């Protein structure tokens, strides 16, 4: 499903607010997982829609997705 670019922008802003509010709760591991997962979702939205990877070869989407997963996992391992 391809999203409208205006909708993607609004989702990105809402996710930013959601992340900031989540951080107010506590600094438990579950909260950190949620914060970093939202960050990954935003990165994927920007790369797929703002950078138009949604129309590119699927290998590029896989590369970005795998990179994001590895980075977030790496951060969580050491948290």
């Amino acid at each position, binding site marked *: 499903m391809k999203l409208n670019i205006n909708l993607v922008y609004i989702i990105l802003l809402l996710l*930013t607010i959601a992340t900031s509010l989540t*951080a107010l709760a506590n600094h438990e591991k579950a909260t950190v997982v949620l914060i970093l997962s939202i960050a990954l979702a935003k990165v994927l939205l920007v*790369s797929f829609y*703002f950078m138009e990877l949604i129309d590119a070869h699927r290998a590029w989407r896989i590369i970005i997705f795998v990179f994001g997963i590895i980075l977030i996992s790496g951060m969580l391992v050491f948290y």
Partner: protein
Amino acid sequence: MQQKIPVTSYARFSYPPGGILIWIIVLLELITFGIGLIGFFYVGGEHKEMFHQASTHLSPLWGAINTMVLLTAGFFMVKSSHNFKAKDFLKTISWMSLAMIGGLLFMAIKGVEYYSKIQAGISLNENLFFNFYWALTFFHLIHVLVALVILMVFYIKLKRNPSSLDELDFMAGAAFWHMCDLIWLFIFPALYLVY
């Protein structure tokens, strides 16, 4: 009669938006910042209390505002790219100007944040948390500055002779601009929210 070039899977892989070279740069930059952020978490895991204390000197509110400013500038750049492809160069310039204003605003907010830290005596040598803070955010700020210079060059080219600007070049510049968003989207939660 013009011959149609078959769009093979290899060709599609070789030509992501902006071309393969800019995407190699994007990936290398993401890996570089990624290593820095994993290092930040590694050190943070060993000095959790100190990282928690140090992070209280950062304002998550201003971090969130700066994130929204950068995302808004990115959105304006998307609008500019769409208009460039439609060959509506006046709108391309208008949206790009707004994107540049967003970039400048981001730098201004960061400048105020840096100023307040320096006023409070928080330097690069304050502690391990601020080693990472200054290195990661300043390195990112340099990228935003470079992206602004690229857009400024595009702006001048579009004003003088729009046909002198190739679509691949324009998309590569736009990709560099958005790369700053990508990097910041990892830096913001790590530095401002997690600890």
